[in-house]
């Protein structure tokens, strides 16, 4: 007989595993910010999210090489930069040495009068020409003037140097042996921008491994050491450590829960029978989301996994209520009403969420609703068939007599719920937290290193930037020029260290035309030169190349982005600050370094005005994004609860409906109040966990509030609730030990919530169940 049961269970499980394998192999898992992104976000939050994901600052890896004599690490720094710049995984690699190669220099040199920083009004006046030629002759005699010999006839005013200076940036990193060094000269520094987005975990893993592999290829016996930091490195480290911990917690939970179930049921078959609907629920949920949305977000999937805590309750309820001498089918019929009601209401609670304007929330709703219904249906349809020949024993013990004891706490439970609500009402201010960055356990070592290298190199601030969007490249370049004037002032007054804007490299067409108008005519220039060289040891004829280049620059068509963007190195730098979006509009980034007074930045954004110049404080913006997400989640949570109450009052007697509702409200508000009182404000993740708690608490309350039960029933229900609660509280309780606040928060919410739910259900709903068989 038992062999029948085993073969049926094995067949069912094999089919499930095969189906699950196919489904999970084919779903498209997303792991980015899109989970929190509304379908139709405001322009500014859309841009902010885009920045967080793929902005130039968020793709910047800060690299340091130390642990060897400075000449060794300087050599390694040059070598590493050389190798990495050949790889397509990186859009910019700088070690401080010769960032521009000869080809790039030639392009810049050719268009030196139109590109780059402004030309002073009197640069070509006779007296100014004389001054610059005389100073160049001075340098020509010195050592650093060796290359000037070829340059001077074409560029007596030193324009190419001004241009290169602009490319080197306004920040002044410390140099040693020709590469960037920390000021204490112990560490060579590099900037590496990855081609992969900052939040592209796979791409970042590959890129960062590539840096490490290249370094170990060249390090030899020097004993030098490579360190990396920056947003992509830190976020990868964090998500990897969370994933690692989640994996260990998962393994630990499976082991403990399996052991508990084995001890309780003493049957491998029953274990399989519990696993089956749980797996079916998870597979059905993931499949439904994939079919409806075309992809599944990692967070939704993880949450779907934790839903196992709810779906595994259905088989446990059924198995716990089996009796000797009756078939599973009969027993299912007996508990069908609370089982179906519990699952139906839980699913209904998630239904409103499926139409949320946040795809992330909608996915969550679908995965939960479908998962719960799938798990329940698998329990109802497959388990009776599997367990048909499984022998059951029943013992009437003493545990049912505990229930009336709990029921004495009815008033206390309701009072506790009211107290919880009161606490929440009083402590409203610290109720919610939308600053997810506070949830990230950033590795302090990497954060310190980031701060140090960023400070040394004057690398751009990750949090604050200006963004200009417009219909054309010209429009955003004009915006970049406008704001540059203000930023120049801010840099002078010390409110910011420096800034980087695309117009510094490529001026707008308007500015280029104005420059062309300001360049002297050939006659003017010849005349000016003849005066300038009068008492210098050179002739006007020496400067024929100069005269020729000025004439060419004057006649040239102004340079537009498509001409410059394909040029290696030059184009890469420009592309990180100026790009064409998929919808044909253009966007310019103004990056800031060493921001000392953020308040001045928002003032500037106001002054510059217009709808095209935005000041983005990514932290504030991400908080806005999360806050609107949370508000939406809360709205659907309340909506879901309304549906729950409605269904309860329709489907159940008034007494039961009131008891179940009270139990639910009491446990949820008490849980939330305890979390807040513990100094743990609620994030969207806590809210999701509360939904899970609600789903389980609902089952407990519905089962316990039944009228037509005998002692054995009561005992079975109690046993099943204890099993359900313990097997949920233990895995989530393990999460409390995690170092990641996000896991800790979810774990704590569910562990406290489920414990409280079972207690309030026992106290509020358990009183009436006194019937004795």
């Amino acid at each position, binding site marked *: 007989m038992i062999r029948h049961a085993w073969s049926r269970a094995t067949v069912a499980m094999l089919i499930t595993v095969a189906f699950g394998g196919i489904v999970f192999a084919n779903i498209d898992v997303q792991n980015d910010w899109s989970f929190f992104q509304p379908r139709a976000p405001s322009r500014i939050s859309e841009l902010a999210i885009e920045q967080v994901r793929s902005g130039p600052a968020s793709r910047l890896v800060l690299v340091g090489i130390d642990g060897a004599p400075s*000449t060794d690490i*300087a*050599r390694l720094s040059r070598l590493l930069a050389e190798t990495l710049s050949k790889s397509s995984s990186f859009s910019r690699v700088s070690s401080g*040495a*010769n960032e521009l*190669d*000869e080809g790039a*220099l030639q392009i810049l040199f050719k268009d030196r009068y139109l590109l780059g920083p402004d030309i002073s009004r009197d640069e070509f006046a006779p007296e100014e020409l004389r001054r610059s030629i005389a100073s160049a*002759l*001075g*340098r*020509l*005699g*010195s*050592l*650093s*003037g*060796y*290359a*000037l*010999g*070829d*340059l001077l*006839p074409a560029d007596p005013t030193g324009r190419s*140097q001004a241009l*290169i*200076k602009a490319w*080197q940036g306004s920040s*002044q990193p410390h*140099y*040693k*042996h*020709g590469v960037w060094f920390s000021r204490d000269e112990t560490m060579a520094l590099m900037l590496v921008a990855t081609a992969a987005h900052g939040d592209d975990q796979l791409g970042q893993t590959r890129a960062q491994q590539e840096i490490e592999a290249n370094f170990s290829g060249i390090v030899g016996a020097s004993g030098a050491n490579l360190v990396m930091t920056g947003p992509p490195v830190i976020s990868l480290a964090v998500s990897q450590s969370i994933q690692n911990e989640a994996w260990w917690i998962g393994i630990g939970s499976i082991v403990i829960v399996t052991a508990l179930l084995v001890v309780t049921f003493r049957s491998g078959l029953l274990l399989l029978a519990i696993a089956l609907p749980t797996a079916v629920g998870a597979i059905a949920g993931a499949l439904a989301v994939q079919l409806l949305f075309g992809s599944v977000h990692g967070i939704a999937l993880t949450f779907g996994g934790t839903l196992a805590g709810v779906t595994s309750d259905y088989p446990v309820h059924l198995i716990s209520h089996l009796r000797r001498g009756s078939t599973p089918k009969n027993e299912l019929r007996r508990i069908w009403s609370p089982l179906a009601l519990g699952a139906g209401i839980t699913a209904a609670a998630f239904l409103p969420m499926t139409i949320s304007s946040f795809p992330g929330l909608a996915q969550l709703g679908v995965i939960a609703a479908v998962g719960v219904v799938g798990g329940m249906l698998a329990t109802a349809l497959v388990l009776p068939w599997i367990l048909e020949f499984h022998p059951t024993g029943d013992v009437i013990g003493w545990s049912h007599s505990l229930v009336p004891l709990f029921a004495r706490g009815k008033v206390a439970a309701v009072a506790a719920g009211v107290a919880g609500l009161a606490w929440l009402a009083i402590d409203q201010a610290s109720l919610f937290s939308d600053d997810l960055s506070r949830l990230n356990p950033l590795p302090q070592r990497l954060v310190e290193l980031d701060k140090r290298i960023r400070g040394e190199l004057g690398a751009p601030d990750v949090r604050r930037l200006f963004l200009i969007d417009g219909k054309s490249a010209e429009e955003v370049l004009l915006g970049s020029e406008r704001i540059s004037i203000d930023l120049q002032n801010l840099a002078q007054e010390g409110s910011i260290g420096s800034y980087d804007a695309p117009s510094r490299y490529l001026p707008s067409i308007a500015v280029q035309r104005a420059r062309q108008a300001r360049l002297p005519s050939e006659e003017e220039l010849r005349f000016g030169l003849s005066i300038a060289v009068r008492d210098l*040891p*050179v*002739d006007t004829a*020496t400067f024929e190349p100069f005269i020729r280049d000025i004439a060419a620059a004057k006649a040239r068509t102004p340079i537009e982005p498509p001409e410059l963007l394909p040029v290696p190195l030059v184009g890469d730098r420009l592309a990180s600050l100026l790009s064409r979006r998929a919808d044909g509009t253009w966007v310019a980034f103004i990056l800031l370094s060493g921001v000392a007074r953020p308040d001045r930045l928002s003032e500037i954004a106001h002054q510059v005005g217009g709808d095209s110049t935005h000041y983005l404080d990514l932290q504030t913006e991400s908080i806005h994004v999360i806050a609107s997400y949370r508000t939406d989640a809360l709205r659907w949570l309340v909506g879901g609860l309304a549906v729950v109450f409605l269904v309860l009052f329709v489907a159940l007697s008034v007494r039961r409906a009131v008891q179940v509702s009270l139990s639910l409200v009491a446990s949820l508000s008490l849980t939330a109040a305890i979390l807040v009182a513990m100094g743990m404000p609620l994030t969207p993740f806590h809210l999701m966990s509360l939904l899970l708690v609600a789903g389980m608490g609902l089952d407990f309350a519905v089962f316990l509030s039944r009228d037509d039960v005998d002692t054995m029933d009561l005992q079975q229900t109690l046993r099943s609730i204890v099993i359900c609660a313990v097997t949920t509280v233990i895995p989530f309780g393990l999460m409390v030990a995690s170092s990641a606040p996000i896991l800790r928060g979810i774990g704590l919410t569910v562990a406290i919530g489920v414990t409280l739910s079972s207690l309030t259900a026992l106290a509020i709903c358990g009183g009436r169940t006194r019937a004795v068989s």
Partner: protein
Amino acid sequence: MSGAVEIMRASIFLCTVALLVAPTGSAQATSTNACPLSQVLASRAKIQESAATFTQERRIRYVRDPLFSAGRLRFVAPNHLEMIVDKPQAESFVYEDGVLTLETAEQAERQISVDSDLILSAMFTGLVGTLSGNEDELRRTFFVDFSDDHCQWQMTLLPKSKRVLEKIREIDLSGSKEHIEKAEILQANGDRSILSISEQQ
């Protein structure tokens, strides 16, 4: 007196023989007055640290008058060379282990262009190779042509690298015994620089 002359003659003879036998200068020269390349370099290699002053005369093809600068040199074996220019503008170059760093008051001008690195790197490599007495180092970067007359020697360094050759035609070094007295750099564009070095004894 005649004995001394005899000794000198003999040594010149020995020196000639040595050069004939081993033109690359690997011979066992014994006389203090004979100065094959190996001898010059070997005596140089014994010097751990030396200092000198220099004047530089630059002749630029389109500038009528020569341009002058002056400064100090300091060498620490095996491969550290500082060149500090005092006039007309203060600047300093530090060459160490194949890496050349320009340090001026305004750091932004630290790297003027790829070309200047090439020219200066070649010049410093030649100087350091000679000062440290490292013949292998010299021959790795240059074709070396050496001649001497009564220990007044001349050495011509021809860059092996094609890229360097596009900038520098040759570097001529001359001196007596283990001292470098003059370094002349002839650029491909016709500009030339003459460094006159007087070593502090």
